[in-house]
């Protein structure tokens, strides 16, 4: 993503040749698709966010009422934001740490690497399957396997993780961490780009394995880590399926797994308030945009690009 600036500042910008026409021609499918399938519907939803629209009859314009209600009286809105932030705070770092650890373990040609990678990718392929919903509830219920294992290993009796409002969100965090396939693939690709000579040189200098990780791997991987963070944060804000399938669409117990998008979905399709749901969507869009800009701004201080020396 950092490429944005560089494309423009790169040598291409200095060239005198005008490539407007070919540029627009190559971009034509994208521009058409963007106008038709993205911008049009998005602007339509912006308009809908200023209306009362119950899906079944025509929308009626109500000005800023939806936004006013959201920020003054809607407690579920605040709660949904809180739930989403808690989820993000745990899900993003844990998932990335896990994906990175596994990727580092599998880097440098371990035998059967293909099979391991494929096995580790299975959870991501299972995605929003109904089977996962049933299974997850069985694993994390009061006398589920998790608690039986905890009892056998440590002699503690755990709560019914999935139905306790204090703990239910963490079962969704675990679900997300368990589906670490895509960042793992990206990390593997990043690791492959680090030249083995660097490690050899470090070994000769007597640097320990852990020192090599801190001094070589992580700094050189910083751009990839950054890329994964941005992607995961965006995906995290948009997360919908896990909470939807596991709580049966309720976001319960006591709204403890009411993701923002799940609330948005409930308002739109269960409570017939598409106007309000559109307003919720626009607020989410602004929040994601703010967070993405913050990450880009702070990245200057910790993401090190080789070609910026």
């Amino acid at each position: 993503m950092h490429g944005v600036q560089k494309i423009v500042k790169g040598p291409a910008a200095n060239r005198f040749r005008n490539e407007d026409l070919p540029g627009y021609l190559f971009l034509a499918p994208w521009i058409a698709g963007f106008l038709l399938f993205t911008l049009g519907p998005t602007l339509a939803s912006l308009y809908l966010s200023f209306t009362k629209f119950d899906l079944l009859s025509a929308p009626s314009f109500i000005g800023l009422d939806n936004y006013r209600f959201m920020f003054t009286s809607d407690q579920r809105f605040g709660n949904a934001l809180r739930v989403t932030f808690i989820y993000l705070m745990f899900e993003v770092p844990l998932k990335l740490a896990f994906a990175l650890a596994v990727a580092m373990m599998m880097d440098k040609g371990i035998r059967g690497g293909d099979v391991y990678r494929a096995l580790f990718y299975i959870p991501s392929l299972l995605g929003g399957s109904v089977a996962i919903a049933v299974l997850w509830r069985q694993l994390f219920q009061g006398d589920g396997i998790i608690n039986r294992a905890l009892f056998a290993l440590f002699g503690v009796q755990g709560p019914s993780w999935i139905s306790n409002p204090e703990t239910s969100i963490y079962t969704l965090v675990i679900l997300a961490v368990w589906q670490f396939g895509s960042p793992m693939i990206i990390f593997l690709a990043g690791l492959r780009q680090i030249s083995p000579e660097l490690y050899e040189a470090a070994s000769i200098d007597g640097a320990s394995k852990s020192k090599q990780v801190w001094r070589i791997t992580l700094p050189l991987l910083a751009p990839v880590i950054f890329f994964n963070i941005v992607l995961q944060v965006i995906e995290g804000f948009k997360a919908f399926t896990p909470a939807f399938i596991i709580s049966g669409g309720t976001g319960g117990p006591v709204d403890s797994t009411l993701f923002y998008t799940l609330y948005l979905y409930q308002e739109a399709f269960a409570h017939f308030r598409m106007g309000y749901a559109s307003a919720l969507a626009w607020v989410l869009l602004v929040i994601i945009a703010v967070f993405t800009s913050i990450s880009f701004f702070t990245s200057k201080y910790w993401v090190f690009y080789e070609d910026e020396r």
Partner: protein
Amino acid sequence: MNAEALHPSRQAGAQKSAYGAVLRHALLIGASIIMLYPLLWMLASSFKPDSLIFSDMSLIPPSLNPRNYIEGWNALEVSFSRFYWNSFVIAVLAVIGNVMSCSLAAYAFARLNFRGRKLFFALMMATLMLPYHVTLIPQYVLFLNIGWVDTFLPLVVPKFMAGDAFAIFLMVQFFRSLPRELDEAARIDGCGPWRIYWMIVLPLSKPVLATAAILTFLWTWNDFFGPLIYLNDISHYTVPLALRAFVDTTGLSAWGQLFAMSSLALAPIFLFFLFFQRLIINGIAMSGLKG
């Protein structure tokens, strides 16, 4: 005496790394079991009668009776061969459309110097942030008005319009890593942008095109919401959509059949991933995410 015995230090090193390998394998196998548990559970459940699925957590089914598979395959009005065919057609068309249209857009962003490029690129990346529930109803109305609802077109045509920002981004990165001298040489030979794209950039970009193709296939195959909204008649359903017709939370559900068909549904994408993963990693690695 072999060579290693003459070099005790090297032998020790080899031993140490052998231990390391064993440890790594042990860790990876342990992790695999955790990763695989749900799959095993699903497989075991697919052989159980419905009355046992919720009370019996055992991973070993009472028998290997394939009833659920046979009955599940034909449980709906049309058989699963139809659903697989539908999924396959949609996924293949999506792959073709996505690879062609995204590579065009990516070439423009990576190599052409035109006004508004920065703005377009930013807009393109911003589409990553859109929550899809927002655009759902307006999009539906649009497709309905052009008469595309209950056909595959709403699921396929947008793929021909470079809607996949992630793929474009990867391709932009990859194209930028190709040496510019090639273009310049071609330009001097009188090649226009189209021929440079077609004769030079595309042939050199097979790894990233493969990556985009594979990821598109996987994502399209698993997509559920699009087919749910746009496909009506059961004979047009895709595999993930058909699976939702097995469960009625307010009434009877064919659980055993659901798990049997879910297991089968996983097989093609698992194999697909198993065989093509090297290409994915290669493609991403060579695109040089480093920026």
